[in-house]
Structures are given as structure tokens and as C-alpha cells.
């Protein structure tokens, strides 16, 4: 029972990182980012591969996040001339590219069989293999992510970014390059997504492409909408709610082929009901255009 609670808490910290990073692109920048799961995947695969060739854990997840960040910058490039629907299309397309590559480049990613035996994490000679140690570390990382994003949102960069979201032309008139703001924020969002992905991969020690599909993105999106766009504290509350939501399904003796889609269905329904009833979530202040 204790192990069960520990694993839930670890999932909460990891999903908090996933959703905090989505807040940067979807909330603060107002960029319809449906490719978030792809950046998580890049961080997960890159850090796992690095760990498997002997790179120390701390360095491998940071490098994984950096690689993810570079892809984030690349994906944001067409946003100079594009708006709303097109951004959703590009980011969705990108997440499918990453999925196809993960599935087909078997030499690198293990293909549909995935990557197994990802080394369990070690930091400064201390093993994080036990769940309680891992929880301390993942909590630390999620707290750092929260504090950095919180701090950034109050800097001139963060204010300008939100100004650009609410009034792009007005911000440009002030001589600020909204293009730069959006690409940088998108790269940042991808960085933290990649960081969370690396942490996730080292926690479950086995990854395959099915972990990084659109269905796996829905709970993260649900957290951000439920918590309220740009509300980082609301995001924590929402993470707890969303991670716990499908847990009762575990206790109904259902077969695993039913539990998977039933979980996905519960998240999608939650999100749809939220959009109809309370699109601004717990503490959301802003409105997406």
C-alpha cells in the first residue's frame, strides 16, 4: 500500500513538470501546442539512450532536455507567419513525425519493442532506485521547474510574452519582437517537457512509442485547463486530481484491454466537460483566442 502511494506521488511530480512546461507554451505564450508529448518523448528517448551508453544520470536528463529544446525552437519557426489552427496542425504533425521515427528507427529507438533496461538513476553516488529516494529527487526537480517558471513569468520577458499573447500588434508597436518571444518560450517549454520525459523514462525504466501518443497528451492538457491557464498553483491541484481520477478503475476487476481505453476515455470526457462548463478551470484568468 505504501509503495502504491509512493508511485502515485512520483507520478504527480512528473505530471506536474509535464503540465508546468505546457503552461509556458499554451498558457503564457498562448501557442496552441498539441505536440507537447513529442518533446516529452524526445527527452525520454535521448536521456535513456545516453544513460545506456554510460552518461551519468543527471547529465543525461539535462542533455535530453536540451535536445528537446532545440527541436522546440525548430518547430516554433513557422509561427512567424501563422496563427491558431495552423500551429495546432504543425505541432500535431510534429508529434506524429516523432512517433513514426520512434516506431521505425529500430536501430536507435528499439522500434515498437521500445527501450528496456534503462539504468536506474544514481546521483553523486547515491542510488535513486528505491521509490522513496526517487520521489525526493523528482519532487526537487518539479519544485525547481515551478520556481524557475514562476520567476520567469514575472521578469520583463514573461510580461512581454503575455502582452504578445493578448495583443500581438500592440506589443510589436513597442518595438518588441514577438517572434523571438514565442520561439524562445516554446523552446523553454520543450526543455522542461524533455526534462520531465527523462525523469519519467528513468522512473519506469522501460519506454516504447505507445507511451507518447495523442491519448497520453490528453491528461496533461486536462491538467492545464482544469488548473487554469497560467495558474501554476492551480496546476498542482489539478495534477493531483487528474492523476487520481482513473485510479478507482484499478479496483474494478477489469481486464487490461479495457482499463487502458477506459482511462483514456475518462480523461477525454473530463476535458470535454470542463471545456463546456468551465473552460477557465480553477484559477484561470486568461481566455484563449
Amino acid at each position, binding site marked *: 500500500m505504501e509503495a502504491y502511494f509512493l508511485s502515485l506521488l512520483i507520478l504527480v511530480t512528473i505530471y506536474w513538470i509535464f503540465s508546468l512546461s505546457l503552461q509556458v507554451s499554451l498558457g503564457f505564450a498562448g501557442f496552441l501546442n*498539441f505536440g507537447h508529448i513529442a518533446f516529452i518523448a524526445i527527452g525520454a528517448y535521448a536521456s535513456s539512450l545516453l544513460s545506456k551508453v554510460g552518461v551519468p544520470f543527471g547529465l543525461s536528463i539535462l542533455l535530453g532536455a536540451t535536445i528537446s529544446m532545440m527541436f522546440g525552437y525548430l518547430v516554433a519557426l513557422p509561427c512567424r507567419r501563422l496563427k491558431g489552427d495552423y500551429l495546432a496542425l504543425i505541432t500535431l*504533425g*510534429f508529434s506524429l513525425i516523432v512517433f*513514426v521515427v520512434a516506431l521505425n528507427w529500430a536501430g536507435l529507438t528499439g522500434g515498437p519493442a521500445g527501450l528496456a533496461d534503462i539504468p536506474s538513476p544514481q546521483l553523486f553516488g547515491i542510488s535513486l532506485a528505491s521509490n522513496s529516494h526517487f520521489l525526493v529527487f523528482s519532487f526537487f526537480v518539479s519544485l525547481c521547474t515551478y520556481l524557475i517558471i514562476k520567476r520567469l513569468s514575472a521578469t520583463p520577458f514573461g510580461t512581454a510574452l503575455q502582452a504578445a499573447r493578448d495583443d500581438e500588434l500592440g506589443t510589436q508597436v513597442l518595438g518588441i519582437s514577438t517572434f523571438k518571444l514565442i520561439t524562445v518560450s516554446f523552446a523553454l517549454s520543450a526543455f522542461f517537457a524533455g526534462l520531465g520525459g527523462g525523469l519519467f523514462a528513468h522512473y519506469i525504466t522501460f519506454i516504447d512509442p505507445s507511451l507518447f501518443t495523442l491519448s497520453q497528451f490528453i491528461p496533461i492538457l486536462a491538467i492545464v485547463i482544469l488548473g487554469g491557464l497560467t495558474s501554476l498553483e492551480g496546476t498542482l491541484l489539478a495534477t493531483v486530481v487528474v492523476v487520481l481520477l482513473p485510479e478507482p478503475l484499478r479496483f474494478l476487476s477489469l481486464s487490461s*484491454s479495457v482499463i487502458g*481505453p477506459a482511462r*483514456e476515455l475518462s480523461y*477525454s470526457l473530463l476535458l470535454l466537460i470542463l*471545456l*463546456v462548463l468551465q473552460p477557465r478551470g480553477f484559477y484561470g484568468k486568461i481566455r484563449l483566442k
Partner: protein
Amino acid sequence: MDIFLQIVINALIAGSLYGLVAASFSLIYSTNRFAHFAHGGVIISSGYFLFWLTNTLQLNLLLSAILTVVFAGLLGVCLNLFVYLPLRKRDASNSILLIASVVTLTIMQSVLTLLFGSSIKSFNYPGLHEPMGFLGAYMTPIQIVIVLSAIAMVTLLSIFLKKARLGKTLRAVAENPKLAETIGISTVSTYNWSFFIGSALGGVAAIFIALEQNLLPSMGIGLVIKGFAGAVIGGLGSVTGAVYGSLIIGAAENIGVWFFPSGYKDAITYVLLFVFLLVRPSGLFSKRNA
């Protein structure tokens, strides 16, 4: 030479399939002015509906196909009535409608997985897949039907949009919904009609996709992205542009499989889309800005 002809034919077949998806998506998009990603879910659900009719109920294929088209149209209208209309009433922005459409797609995907399982469903009509020689290249009967129907459907749709009263109404609402209301056009019923016609056309695509490529619950998102991509490459808002864009995608995929393993086929489309949006976001045949 034969290989070249075969590539052209394969590109034409793929382009016809994607063209039906793109034209139907584009019709709904231009009237409703938001990206209805759940269209992919409507198509794939209709494919499964056809599977249920022909395999479980053992109905004959032609009757099942007709019922599937009606089912698709009604499913589209239901989505509009029970998902998008309540959101519009609450003055939801385009981004919220778009997120709702993606979520609706994943809901349909989960329901299909619960109902039919996650394994591939295929149809057993050997006669449809008997290759026939054609100037040194090969085509199956179903592929010939696909190409001819796609040409017929798109031509009919263009004529309908230009000449028929309802077609003109659709275009009027697409052009300026407020102005259309002032001259007595009900936008709500026009939205419903566009969903019915667009989704029914998607149902035609569903039949061909089911018979030609088999079915998986997770296929919807890839299909709608290809349809959207075809519409974007051709220039959004024009049905014929959407078909040209889809032919380009069909060609790119079939040329691409000569250089890359076939598993990367889908990735080729998305990379092409990315390059297009970077270089020419307004599409090939459109003067409108993105």
C-alpha cells in the same frame, strides 16, 4: 517506364483517398471557421460502422456502404449539436473549439477501442483486390472505383457549391456569417448542413479507406492531419485546391517510399507540410493570407 507509371497510379490512388478527406474537411472548415479535427474520428467510426454492418450483421456491401454514408453525415451533425453548439452558445473562442475537437477525436478513438479492440480489422472481399494489368502497371478494382468516385464526388461538390441554393448558402456563411444572417439565412442550420454534407463525404472516404487500408482505432488523427495538410497545401477554402494539395501529398508519399522504408511514409507528409507552412503558408492556389 512501367515503374514510373505505377508510381503515378499509386500517387493518384492515394491522392484520391486523401482528396476526399481533404475536400470534406475543407467544406466544414470554411463554413464553420474552425479546424474540426474530430472529422478524422467521424471517418474512422464510419469505417468501423461499415465493418459492423458487413461482418457482424452480414449485410451486403452496397447497402452497407449507403448506410455508412448516412451514418457519417448524422454523426457529424450530432457532434455539431452536442459538442460545438453548446460551446458556441457559451461564446467559446476558436482555440477552445479546436481543443474540443481534438478531445472529441480521442473520445471516439477510446470508444472504438472498447467496442472493437485495438487490433487491425480487415475486410474479406478478395474480388476487390484482384490486380488487373493496365498498360504495364497494376490496379485493383477497388482502386479504380476509388479514383473514379473521387473525381465524381469532387466534381459534384464543386457544382453543388456553385449552383445549388444550399451550396450558395454554405458559401455565403463561409464568406460572412453576420451578413448572411441579416439577409435571413439561419447560420445554425447552415452549420448543421455543412456538417452533414462534409461528414457524409467523409463517410465515402471511410468506405474506401476501410476497404483499401484496413482499420485501426488510432487512424483518425493521421487521416485528418493529411486532409488538413492537403487543404493547406492547396490553399484553404477551396475544394479543388484541397484535391490538388492531396495529389501532391499522394505523389510525395509514393516517391518517398523509394528512398525511405515504407514505415516513414506518414512522416514524409508531415515534413512536407512543415516546409510548406514555413515557405508558403497561404498554399499553392489561394490568394487569401493564412
